[in-house]
């Protein structure tokens, strides 16, 4: 079974063509890094898989079904909002709002919802963080809570939008290892969105690289090289490998601007 399949898909955002005629498939159980510069269409692609926007052309299939809004088989972690860090509510309460948030009424969690929340928190190793308010958690700890929230409902596919943003190298590694482990344990596909390649190198089975309305999929070596990226960016690209790290350069300017030298 394919977790995600795109057949000649065209996506638009605000009247602009973000993807045109893109085809690829991701098998169930694969850990895929979704890469590309800011504005390359990563979030738009996730929203199309979630059934929140309709493709302007082509067909998307998610777990062998057309995308539908409210698909309980997809676990989704949106990009973290700054406002969240100021909320005094606890990790447990935060996970719980996703457990029953689609029902009307007063937010008192049922026993089943509490059980689901604890299970999800346990899966990310955040049971001991659950009672603490989000304000007191570090960036990495907060990301764990967000991943737990995405795991509510036993998803068969996990979509994570920039989980590494504003994390230091050590925390980035923990989050990647955690997601990798969860994906393998549950046997589900993970689409891990990031604008940095290097932290993901060790973990991903393959990368899906977006640029210039096009997409390239394959192993790291197959995709992240001069010819393929030059085609994607529409300009001459050099890929330089130094000490196990990859630098993507255009006219000697590093495109992966977020790559930090302290990331070993």
């Amino acid at each position, binding site marked *: 079974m394919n977790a995600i399949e795109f057949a000649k898909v065209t996506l638009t955002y605000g009247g602009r063509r973000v993807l045109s005629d893109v085809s690829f498939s991701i098998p169930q159980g694969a850990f895929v890094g979704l890469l590309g510069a800011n504005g390359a269409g990563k979030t738009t692609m996730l929203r199309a898989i*979630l059934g*929140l926007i309709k493709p302007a052309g082509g067909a998307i299939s998610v777990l062998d079904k057309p995308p539908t*809004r*409210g*698909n*309980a088989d*997809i676990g*989704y*972690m*949106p*990009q973290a*909002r700054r*406002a*969240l860090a100021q*909320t*005094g*509510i*606890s990790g447990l*309460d*935060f996970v719980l*709002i*996703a457990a*029953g*948030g*689609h*029902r*009307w*009424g*007063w*937010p008192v969690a049922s026993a089943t919802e509490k059980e689901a929340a604890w299970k999800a928190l346990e899966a990310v190793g955040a049971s001991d963080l659950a009672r603490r*308010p989000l304000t*007191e958690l570090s960036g990495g700890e907060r990301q764990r809570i967000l991943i737990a*929230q*995405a795991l509510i409902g036993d998803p068969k596919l996990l979509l994570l939008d920039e989980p590494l943003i504003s994390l230091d190298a050590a925390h980035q590694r923990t989050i990647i290892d955690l997601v990798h482990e969860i994906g393998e344990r549950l046997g589900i596909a993970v689409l891990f969105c990031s604008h940095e390649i290097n932290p993901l190198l060790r973990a991903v089975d393959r990368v899906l690289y977006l640029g210039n309305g096009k997409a390239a999929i394959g192993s790291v070596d197959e995709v992240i090289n001069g010819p393929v990226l030059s085609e994607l960016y529409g300009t001459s690209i050099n890929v330089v490998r130094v000490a196990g790290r990859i630098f993507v350069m255009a006219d000697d300017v590093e495109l992966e601007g977020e790559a930090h030298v302290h990331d070993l």
Partner: protein
Amino acid sequence: MSTIFDYEFMRNAFYACTVVGIVAGAVGYFLVLRGQTFAGHALAHVGFPGATGAGLVGLSPFFGLTVFTVIAGIGIGLLGERAHRDVAIGIVLTLSLGLGLLFLHFYTAFASQATNVLFGNVLGINLRTVIVLAVLAVAILVALVLIARPLLFASLQPELAEARGVPINLVSTLFMVLVAFTTSEAVQIVGVLLVFALMVAPAATALRLTQGVLAGLAVSMVLAVTIAWISLSLAYLTDWPTSFWITALGTSAYLVSGIAQRSMARRQAADGRS
């Protein structure tokens, strides 16, 4: 010995403050949580021409105010993110006050009441108005309870809520309607210009001091009622306007909570280091 409660207008004022404090505290909590406080402020202003316009055509100002705020609330709800533009809100706000002024110009007899609409006149509330406020308050609270769960989800994780199938536009529009009704209630106490003091100051203070939604809501409501009660008492003792005291106490509570929050954070940081 005469007490503050010997006067009927004082008793009514306390009733009204209790009712409005509870509603403003509850709805205000979600307003602050959603980062829509400025929208609440704007709704009140849009109510001003409603009140003066109603006076012009011989209707009750409260009725006109409520109709205008509710229509504006639906508008803000439907516009969604697009309504969060400082310039657009500011311009609508100014136009509203301008229109209100125009209606006053045509209906000069209403001018004496204009100050009441702008700054509130809690001591002028009669028992009938208290009952109207109370009935409306119960309706607002029931509706808030009914939408609380998806509202919380849509407020804290809008993208995820949308993906999970929560009708976030419907939820936010319903909420803005509740904000509109709450605003017209609060205007009866503090007036169009000072609605922030009752709807936002206690709620923002509560959010700083509490963890957990239920605790936050409770503190917000208690704080709003307490501030209103103390303000009434101070107004009685000093003969200064109640609305002034509500703004002063609301601001003080907010400032003190900021200091408390910072010292708590410092203590925690110190604990963490030791």
